[in-house]
């Protein structure tokens, strides 16, 4: 699992002509072993000790949690690489692309299989190096993006290293799955937990360490966005958070930490989706929506209740599915449009029906519309939040409202996006757009099917196979929700609606004056309503407009603060240099 992607990636890099073939072999073998390890993990915990180096045991562990996530990483990897074969033909300087992709998968496998924190950190840090190289591939300005990512993630990784060092020195053991989780009472242990969580959150893309993701969406190929921030980084970051909060420590033992985690989650959910609403580039909208979804996972884990943590884990897996799907769908569109600006898109539903249908499923899933997977996982998170209310946490209404509001705003964001890309009248430049080769539409279709299956058959597939076995506690039955029955009812309702439509309005089309809720219609060719200006009134609301302005100016960006400090130093030096020279 660690070496195969590296070797095939290097072979593909060395023999450039065969890089697609070698990448495919590598990714298929990776999936094959991931499946084998998944089933192996269901039987027993597997430990493989490599050596003792400087009194630290170097060993790997496969358990049910790591087995499940391994399978998800491998499955997402194969779909994204399959998509890349056609998509990346439009990009230049991609010799190292497949090598980096495979190295990323190898590093991710290493993180998931690591038995203790130092071994995990070895692969975690290696991912930063590969990510840096990968982000250098892209549009003009990719160097600045890569620089930003490596500085932000590097800082958070070093902070994490400090936390690991505290654990190693003060506690003596650093196992990622000890027999008994530790209570979070000792201040040093709390400090270690917080420092390691900072690293995990930065990788997952939680606020305020999220800023490298929207920046990457500006320059990186859609496939890179689909694999790394949308899927892999989120999976790994949240995987580590679950390991820490459930296996290594017992987060339920410290209510302050729980509330801090949930507060970060709540702010991330609402603030990120608000930013998404006012963006004008498809990739950036998706990037902010992905960040927003991380907030749900944090709220779920922060509850410290079995149902909340299970919901958080389910949310994480779902995010990787519809996150990757959304970016790949957007990539299919961008393949033809050569741009992701919302003003230049529209009317693609007829030309790209599979992509449209897939995108619609992803959009509804991420917005938490029943009966799709996003609804189910969010519903579990809501249950967890309500449970902590019953345990005396008075802040629970705030977290619940934030989570529900986030869901509504996500739906609003995707209404805009779906309309902008697929509905209405398209520009002339997209007249030749059509569904790409099967390597492009198949991955999105597969991911869309997973979204449906995981929602409709939640009790039959994801919960018993992936979620419940991955947690060290039992999840009590919760609430009443019958997704199969609900789906049938929804389908019947839709059928009746379709009949009414066909025998009613469809036969007698009427033309009415377009009403856009008082919003200003964007001035564009052919009088198209692109949806770019939708929700622009948000920018005029008193407090929100101020916050959005600050956000757009980079006031909440840690990197900006660092760079301003650096520029100030540089300016002083430049003035001195000029004086010396002149």
């Amino acid at each position, binding site marked *: 699992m660690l070496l195969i992607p590296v070797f095939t990636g290097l072979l593909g890099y060395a023999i450039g002509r065969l890089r697609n073939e070698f990448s495919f072999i590598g990714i298929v073998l990776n999936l094959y072993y991931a499946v084998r390890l998944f089933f192996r993990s269901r039987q027993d915990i597997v430990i493989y000790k490599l*050596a003792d*180096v*400087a*009194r630290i045991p*170097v060993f790997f562990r496969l358990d049910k949690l790591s087995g499940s996530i391994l399978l998800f990483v491998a499955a997402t990897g194969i779909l994204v690489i399959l998509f890349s074969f056609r998509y990346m033909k439009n990009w230049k300087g991609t010799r190292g692309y497949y090598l980096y992709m495979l190295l990323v998968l190898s590093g991710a496998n290493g993180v998931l299989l690591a038995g203790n924190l*130092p071994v995990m*950190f*070895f*692969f975690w*840090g*290696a991912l*930063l*190096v590969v990510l840096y*190289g990968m982000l*250098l591939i892209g549009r*003009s300005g990719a*160097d*600045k993006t*890569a*620089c930003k990512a*490596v*500085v932000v993630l*590097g*800082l958070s990784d*070093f*902070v994490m*290293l*400090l936390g690991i*060092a*505290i654990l*190693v*020195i003060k506690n003596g053991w650093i196992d990622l799955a000890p027999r008994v989780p530790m209570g979070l009472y000792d201040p*040093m242990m709390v*400090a270690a937990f917080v420092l390691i969580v900072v690293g995990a959150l930065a990788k997952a893309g939680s606020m305020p360490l999220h800023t490298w993701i929207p920046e990457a969406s500006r320059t990186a190929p859609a496939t890179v966005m689909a694999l790394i921030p949308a899927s892999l980084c989120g999976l790994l970051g949240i995987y580590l958070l679950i390991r820490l909060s459930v296996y290594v420590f017992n987060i339920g033992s410290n209510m302050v930490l729980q509330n801090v985690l949930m507060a970060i989650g709540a702010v991330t959910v609402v603030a990120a989706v608000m930013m998404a609403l006012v963006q004008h580039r498809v990739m950036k909208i998706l990037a902010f929506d992905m960040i927003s979804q991380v907030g749900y996972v944090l709220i779920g884990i922060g509850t410290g209740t079995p149902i909340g943590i299970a919901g958080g884990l389910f949310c994480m897996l779902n995010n990787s599915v519809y996150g990757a799907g959304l970016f790949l769908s957007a990539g299919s569109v961008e393949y033809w449009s050569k741009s992701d600006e919302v003003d230049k898109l529209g009317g693609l539903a007829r030309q790209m029906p599979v992509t449209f249908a897939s995108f619609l499923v992803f959009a509804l899933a991420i917005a938490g519309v029943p009966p799709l997977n996003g609804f189910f996982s969010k519903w579990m998170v809501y249950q967890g939040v309500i449970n902590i209310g019953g345990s005396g946490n008075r802040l629970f209404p705030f977290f619940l409202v934030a989570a529900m509001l986030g869901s509504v705003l996500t739906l609003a964001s995707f209404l805009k996006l779906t309309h902008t890309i697929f509905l209405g009248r398209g520009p002339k430049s997209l007249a030749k757009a059509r569904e790409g080769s099967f390597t492009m539409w198949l991955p999105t279709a597969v991911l869309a099917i997973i979204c449906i299956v995981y929602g409709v058959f939640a009790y039959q597939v994801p919960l018993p196979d992936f979620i419940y076995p991955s947690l060290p506690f039992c999840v009590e039955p919760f609430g009443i929700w019958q997704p199969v029955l609900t789906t049938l009812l929804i389908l019947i309702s839709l059928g009746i609606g379709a009949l009414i439509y066909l025998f009613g309005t469809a036969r007698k089309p009427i033309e009415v004056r377009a009403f856009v809720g008082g919003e200003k219609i964007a001035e564009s060719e052919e009088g198209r309503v692109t949806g770019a200006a939708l929700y622009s009134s948000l920018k005029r609301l008193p407090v929100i407009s101020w916050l959005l302005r600050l956000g757009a100016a980079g006031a909440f960006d840690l990197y900006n603060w*660092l760079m301003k400090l*650096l520029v100030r*130093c*540089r300016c*002083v*030096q*430049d003035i001195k*240099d000029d004086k010396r020279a002149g």
Partner: protein
Amino acid sequence: MNAWFGLAGGRVELFFAVVFGFVGLMSLLYSVISIRGKRAIAYFVFLMVLVGSSLGAVFSQNLVLVFVFWEIATFALWRMLSFRKTEQHLAWVWWIDFVASGLILAGLLTILLKEKTANIGQFKGISVSLVPALLVLIGILAKSVGLPLHIWLSKRYKDAPAGVGALVSGIVGNIGVVLFFKLFLTVHVPNSLMTISAILALVLSIVAGGVAMRSNTMRGILTCSTISQSGFIFLGLSMLSFYGILGGITYVFAYAVANAGLFFSMGLVEDATGTGEIRRLGGGARKAPVLATATAMLGFSIIGLPPFLGFFARLGIVFGAVDEGILLGIGAILAIFLSLVDLVRLYTMVFLGDGPSNEWRPVNWFLVGIVVLMALVSLAGGFFAFLPIRFLGPGIS
């Protein structure tokens, strides 16, 4: 006085010798191509003297002899530095070296006269008082890291050939580490001395990292980085703990190889573009992709990112620092972060982006090969880090 002038060594000495020998060999190979002219023969003679005296310092079991070998190496370096500039320009560099050497000598003589022996083997278990130990410590830091006039190093490297820069960061600066190891890890010193040493080293590392941000030249940034990394090594050794010392000595290897490689790379970029001003550079990755990749690998090793050797060394030092106190741990993390920012900035400005109109002349493939070899050693050192760590472990224990 009992004075044995023989040479001997254990695992740690052998480790230092391999590192110095490798960096010396690489520097020699690099210089064979890059150094031409009438004074080339003198340059190579002094290069051999420098490498030989550094090996002498490593294997000496006599403190006076270690000091003498270090001085010979410093003299050889001084002559090599004058290869491209006037000796008058270097006069004040010599004076700072002289003062630092004076401090070391005064401290050593005080210790030797009290103990009536110069043999390191006979120092085991003896206690050294604070004042002479402090004199030696400040002298070592002044000669190796430039305390308190660290800007001196940047002046020293201003016009020096790249091969010399590699020798300074890879060998001469590390002879101080050898003396530190031989003296302070053998005798009993007051705890306060090691605390002072750790704090001084950490402050130097952080300040040098900060100063690098203000530099606009490749040499300026690399020089500050050199000081910062040397400070980090002394931080590890000052912990007097297993992880700290192991990390510090491993980092000598990682840093000597990687920093020497970066100096070679910088020399190649200067030769190709005719400038070392980073604002006038850019786009090097398109013109010299192999050199750019190798340079990135060397930079990652110095920063301490896996899978490069520097990672394990940094890990050990951070563990040691946290063991000593959380504030030292935080300082160590800050120093690493500053290294990251400095080197990423250097790499971005020189190799990425579109770049100004500077023309890139073709680079010599043999010289690029040396940089690549050093990058591969940094990478292989990471994958096989357990070999040096296992080798050093018993020696340190």
